[in-house]
C-alpha cells in the first residue's frame, strides 16, 4: 500500500507538472546545466590532473634530477668555432655519491647526438650513456632481452638497449635482439628493448623535466670510449663545440621525506663550484606537491562554480514551486477539505520539486558525460569520468530539490483551509 501511495503521489506530481510543460521544461533546464557542468568539469579536471601527476611520477618521486644547462653566452659571435665547457662534472658526481647519507643511488647520464642506423633506416634519437643503476632508479622496465649490466660497463661492451619507439622504427617486422645497429660510426649489439613509459597506444606528452620518448641507452664507459667528451654541433656558418662531463645526474633518495633536504643540500653544494649556474635541479616530488596543490585549488573553484550553478537552479525551482503553490491554493484548500493531512500536501509538492530536479539531474548527467567525449575528440585532453561524479551530481540534484522544495511545500501545507478555499 505504501508503494502504491507513493506511485500515486509520483504520478500525480508528473501530471501536475505536465499541465505546464514549458514552465516545467525551463525549470528542468536550469538544473540540467548545473548538473552537467559539475559532471563535465569534474571529468576534465580529473583528466588534466591525472595526466600531469602521472608524468611527474614517471620521473620518480624519490629522485632528484640534476641537469646541465648551457649558461647564457656572451655574444662574441664573430668566431666561427666556439668551445663551451660547462655543466656537471665527474667531480660533482663523486662528491654527491660520497657525501650524503640519504643517497641510495647516483646515476650519471651523458646525452650524445648520434645517428642510429639499421640497414636503410636511420633516426636521430637521444643516445644516453649511463650505468646499470639507471633502470632501478628510473623504474623503467624491460620489454624483452635485458638492461645493461655492471659487466657491460666494466668491460666497455659494445651493447645497447633500445627504447620501444626506436625498436619499432628500426625493426618494424622482427625482434631487434642480438641485431647489430650502427651508432655514429660503430656497431653495437642490441641486448634489450625497454617498455615505453606510457602504456602502448596512449598519447605521450613531455612533462616538465621529462625527455621526449625513445632513446638508445649504452654503457657509460663505452660512450666515453667511442664518442669522447666533446660534441660538435654545426650550425649555419659556425661550429659549436660543447664539452660536458655529465648531462644529467639522477640522485635516488632513500625516503621521500628526505627529498627536500637532499635537494637543498645538492643545490648548496653545486652552487659553491658552479658560479654561473650551469645546472638545474628538478625535484619531481616538489612538482607533484605543486600539482596536488593546483588540483586542490581547482577542486575548490569547481565546488564553488558547481555550488553557484546548483544554487541558481535550486532558486529557479523554488520560484516556480512558489508560483505553483499560489496558483493552486484553491486545490490545496479542496484537498484539505477532502481529508488531506499536512504531510500529504507536503509530499505532493515535494514530489513535484524532486521530479523536476531529478529529471534535470539525470539529463544533466547524460549531457555532462557527453561533454568530456566531445572535448576528448577535439582536443588531446583525456577527461576521466570517475564513478563518483555522476553519483555526486545525482545526490546533489535530489538534495537541491528537497531543500528548495521544502519551503513551498511547507507553505502549501500550512495554509488555512478556509482561506485557501476562498482563494480565486
Amino acid at each position, binding site marked *: 500500500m505504501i508503494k502504491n501511495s507513493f506511485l500515486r503521489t509520483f504520478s*500525480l506530481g508528473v*501530471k501536475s507538472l505536465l*499541465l505546464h510543460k514549458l514552465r516545467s521544461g525551463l525549470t528542468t533546464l536550469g538544473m540540467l546545466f548545473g548538473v552537467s557542468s559539475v559532471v563535465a568539469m569534474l571529468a576534465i579536471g580529473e583528466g588534466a590532473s591525472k595526466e600531469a601527476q602521472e608524468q611527474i611520477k614517471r620521473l620518480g618521486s624519490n629522485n632528484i634530477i640534476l641537469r646541465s644547462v648551457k649558461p647564457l653566452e656572451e655574444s662574441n659571435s664573430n668566431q666561427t668555432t666556439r668551445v663551451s665547457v660547462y655543466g656537471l662534472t665527474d667531480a660533482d658526481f663523486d662528491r654527491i655519491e660520497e657525501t650524503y647519507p640519504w643517497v641510495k643511488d647516483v646515476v650519471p647520464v651523458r646525452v650524445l647526438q648520434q645517428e642510429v642506423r639499421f640497414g636503410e633506416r636511420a633516426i636521430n634519437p637521444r643516445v644516453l650513456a649511463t650505468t646499470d643503476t639507471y633502470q632501478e632508479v628510473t623504474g623503467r622496465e624491460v620489454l624483452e632481452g635485458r638492461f645493461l649490466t655492471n659487466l657491460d660497463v666494466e668491460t666497455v661492451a659494445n651493447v645497447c638497449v633500445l627504447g620501444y619507439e626506436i625498436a619499432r622504427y628500426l625493426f618494424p617486422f622482427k625482434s631487434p635482439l642480438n641485431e647489430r645497429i650502427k651508432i655514429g660510426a660503430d656497431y653495437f649489439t642490441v641486448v634489450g628493448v625497454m617498455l615505453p613509459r606510457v602504456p602502448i597506444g596512449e598519447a605521450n606528452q613531455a612533462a616538465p623535466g621529462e625527455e621526449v620518448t625513445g632513446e638508445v641507452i649504452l654503457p657509460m664507459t663505452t660512450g666515453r670510449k667511442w664518442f669522447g667528451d666533446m660534441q660538435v654541433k654545426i650550425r649555419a656558418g659556425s661550429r659549436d663545440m660543447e664539452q660536458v662531463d655529465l648531462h644529467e645526474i639522477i640522485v635516488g633518495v632513500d625516503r621521500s621525506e628526505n627529498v627536500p633536504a637532499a635537494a637543498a643540500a645538492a643545490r648548496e653544494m653545486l652552487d659553491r663550484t658552479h658560479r654561473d649556474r650551469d645546472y638545474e635541479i628538478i625535484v619531481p616530488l616538489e612538482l607533484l606537491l605543486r600539482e596536488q596543490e593546483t588540483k586542490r585549488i581547482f577542486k575548490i573553484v569547481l565546488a564553488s562554480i558547481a555550488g553557484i550553478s546548483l544554487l541558481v537552479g535550486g532558486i529557479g525551482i523554488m520560484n516556480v514551486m512558489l508560483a505553483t503553490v499560489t496558483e493552486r491554493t484553491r*486545490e490545496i484548500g*479542496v484537498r484539505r*477539505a477532502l*481529508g*488531506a*493531512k499536512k504531510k500529504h500536501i507536503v509530499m505532493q509538492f515535494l514530489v513535484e520539486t524532486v521530479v523536476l530536479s531529478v529529471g534535470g539531474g539525470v539529463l544533466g548527467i547524460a549531457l555532462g558525460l557527453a561533454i568530456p567525449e566531445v572535448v576528448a575528440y577535439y582536443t588531446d585532453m583525456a577527461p576521466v569520468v570517475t564513478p563518483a561524479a555522476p553519483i555526486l551530481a545525482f545526490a546533489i540534484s535530489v538534495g537541491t530539490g528537497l531543500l528548495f522544495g521544502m519551503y513551498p511545500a511547507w507553505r502549501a501545507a500550512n495554509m488555512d*483551509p478556509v482561506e485557501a478555499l476562498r482563494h480565486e
Partner: protein
Amino acid sequence: MDDTSTAVAAPAAPAASEKRAVAELRNVARVYRMGDNEVRALDDVSCKFREGEYWAIMGSSGSGKSTMLNLLGCIDRPTGGEYFVSGTPVSSLDDDALSELRGKHIGFIFQSFNLIPQLNVLENILVPRFYLDDPGSGLEEKARGIAERVGLGSRIDHKPRELSGGQQQRVAIARALINDPSLLLADEATGNLDTQTTEEILQLFDELHRDGMTILLVTHEDEVGSRAEQVMRLKDGNIESITRNR
C-alpha cells in the same frame, strides 16, 4: 418522506427525533479578530443534526452561514463552545486527526465543483479515499458504482474540463460519497447551475436523502431551501428560526 428509518437505522432505532446526532453544536461561537475589532460571526449557536435528516441552512450574506459551514466541515474550529462530530469533540483533535475526521465523516460539495483538473473523473472520485490511512481494496469498482449512482456512467475517463457543469457537480457528489460520510455538506451546490440542472442535482439529493444520507445544504435560494425537510435561518450569527417543510 418519513419512512427513512428503514433505510438507515440500527434494528432497535426509536422514533426519528431521537436518532443519533451526527453533528452537534453546543453554545458554539466563532469570533474573528480584526485589529482591535471583534467580529462575532457566530454568536451562540446550539443545534443537533441527526442521522438521515435533510437540512437547509439559509441566511443573507453576513449572517454567519459560511462560518457555520466551515465549522460543521471541520476546516475551522470554534472559538467558544464545543462541536461534536458523531460524538467526538472537535477541540480534542490535532490537525492530523481533524483531517482524518473530515475525510471519514464529511463529504464536501462546493459551489464551483472544485474538481482537480489534472485527474480524470475516476481519479477525482477517489481523491478522498487515498487520504485515509487505509484506503482498502476494490476501490475502482466502488467508484464506478457511485459514478453510476449519481448518473455519470460512461464518462469515467474524461477530464473535468470535458464535462458540463451539471456533470462536474455529479463528479463532486460522487467524490463526497466515496468514503461513506456521515454528513454531506453542500455549499451553494447549485449556485453555478441553470434551472434545469439545478433541478436534476436537487433530485439527486432527494434520492440520497431517501437512501438515508444526512444532508446539509447551505443556500440563499428559497426554492432550493424548500426542498429540504427542515430549514434553519441564521441572522447576525444566531439562529433566527427553524422551520419544518414537511
